[in-house]
């Protein structure tokens, strides 16, 4: 029954160390949130949401155009990425079997892992080059492509989680397969799929790299969909590396707003799904 002192010491030491690691990682979150909330909240005011950016060197101004720009880019991204991802997910969960599905699944995971800056180059070649202009639309295409893989895998996963008995019940009543899918299975998985969509949106909402040479950015209201536009993450980037203290302060404000949005949506969606570990991403 007696353990050597060495083994007991190693046991105690290593178990303590794992606790230290956990504290460290959780501590980082608190430091990040605390520091950002402090700097962000003190820099935030109503002008931030209603005014256009002030000329360089002048104090004041806001990011109203960037907030609207982000919204427009995300709308385009959603219209492009969600239908393809959703229908593809339905295929994999309900119709797909064999080689083709396996290949699609694998390629989807690879596409999900492609660095966002490379997606930016792709959208540039696909949209900006032929149209010869930076635009809201091009930024939306870049983010839309990024949304497809996650939309597909989350849809597939939540459809698969619907019990077989529900499908069998519908089929036994004489419904065709597609009718079963669209009137029974998808409604049953609805809340999961919607939460997955929110997580997906929250993820691309913070993307900056693919927007640098697609949506490009500007300092005024962007008319329509085919003109360059500012977005919130891109403004954070520009203002963070700026030499002007006032712009740095606005970067904090924008970072705070973006983080509250992203984490708020994340927390809400995860709460709705129940405890689902980062499935869409892994």
């Amino acid at each position, binding site marked *: 029954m007696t*353990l050597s002192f060495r*083994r*007991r010491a190693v*046991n105690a030491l*290593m*178990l303590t160390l*794992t606790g*230290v*690691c*956990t504290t*460290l*990682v*959780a501590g*980082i*979150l608190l430091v990040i949130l605390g*520091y*950002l909330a402090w700097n962000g909240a003190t820099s935030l005011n109503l002008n931030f949401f209603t005014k256009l950016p002030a000329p360089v060197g002048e104090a004041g101004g806001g990011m109203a155009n960037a907030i609207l720009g982000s919204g427009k880019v995300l709308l385009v991204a959603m219209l492009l990425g969600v*239908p*393809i991802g959703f229908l*593809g997910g*339905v*295929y994999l969960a*309900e119709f797909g079997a064999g080689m*083709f599905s396996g290949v699609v699944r*694998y390629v*989807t995971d*690879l*596409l999900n*892992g*492609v*660095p*966002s*800056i*490379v*997606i*930016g*180059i792709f959208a*540039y070649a*696909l949209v900006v080059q032929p149209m010869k202009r930076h635009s809201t639309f091009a930024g939306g295409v870049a983010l839309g*492509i990024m949304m497809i893989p996650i939309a597909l895998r989350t849809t597939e996963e939540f459809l698969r989680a619907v019990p077989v008995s529900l499908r069998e019940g519908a089929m036994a009543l004489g419904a*065709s*397969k*597609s*009718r079963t899918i669209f009137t029974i299975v998808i409604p049953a998985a609805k809340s999961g799929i919607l939460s997955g969509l929110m997580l997906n949106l929250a993820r691309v909402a*913070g993307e*900056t790299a693919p927007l640098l*040479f697609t949506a490009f950015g500007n300092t005024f209201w962007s008319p329509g969909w085919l003109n360059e536009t500012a977005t919130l993450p891109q403004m*954070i*980037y520009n203002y*963070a*590396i700026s030499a002007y203290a006032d712009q*740095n302060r606005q970067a*904090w404000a924008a970072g705070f707003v*973006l983080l509250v949005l992203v984490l708020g949506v*994340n*927390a809400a969606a*995860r709460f709705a799904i129940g405890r689902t*570990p*980062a499935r869409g991403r*892994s």
Partner: protein
Amino acid sequence: MATTPAALPDTRAKFIQRVRTGDPIAHTITGMAAASILAITGLLLYHLWAGSGLPRETFGWSFVTGSAWDPVAEKFGALPFIFGTVVTSIVALLVAVPVGLGAAIFLAELAPRRASDALTFMIELLAAVPSVIYGLLGIFLLVPFLQTSVVPALTATLGFLPIFQGQFLGVSIFSASMVLAIMIVPFIVSVSREVLLAVPQDQREAALALGSTRWESTWKVVVPYALRGILGSVFLALARALGETMAVTMVIGNKPQLSSSLLAPGYSIAAVIANEFAEASSQMHQQVLVELGLVLFALTVLINGAARLMIYSYKGAEK
């Protein structure tokens, strides 16, 4: 949709009946959506390849071995960028993997389930923080902290190593590595914890029954059992670190040089694309950046592909 052998009715009527159920239509439309993923990925690869023809013909393989970078003189060597990308990612892993694995072990093996779930929820929120915000915090919080506390301590104790020599100006390969480490740690924790939780309870009980301590059962039985899944998570984290753009661009210093010291500024593939693509000075310059994108794409696809296969086979073994 097996055909009934009973009668041989009018095939056309049968076809119409099948279509009216909607099944073939739904099958085709959803199948097309699935196939479009393949098309998009193919198109992506095509554009990266076709968009970088000029430098591939001009420089060939010397592109990846050259270290001079002067867009105005049309001198393009990619080595400093590849070096920066690989070194920052590896240093980040060296820091993040032990810490992440330690936290995952604590959360999976020691912490009560409820506390573990709550902590994991918080840690996973960290993974959702946009990279530009990590960059912002990197510039204003981490770099000053490294400059005042960490680096002086490092140079005082380990300063004899070539990797910790030279002047530290704040922005550096080291700073970028630390930001990356913070960014990938949540990912390693969340995936590794899940893999550890999937190890059957019998394994632990058997080890404990044989007289091992809690740590011995964890380190010699549970972790080896879950090793393939953990390695998969490390590879996925590596692929993310390689492709990370904004946070790295903001703290790496953006200086294309090869330096033996981690404290010196550097550059990464993603960062140079982010900085120069929009203002590329010539056709050649732009195509060179696309080729760098191709290199990055190949690097991440290779590592991702291997990681996926590892995780698939792990999941397969579970069933």
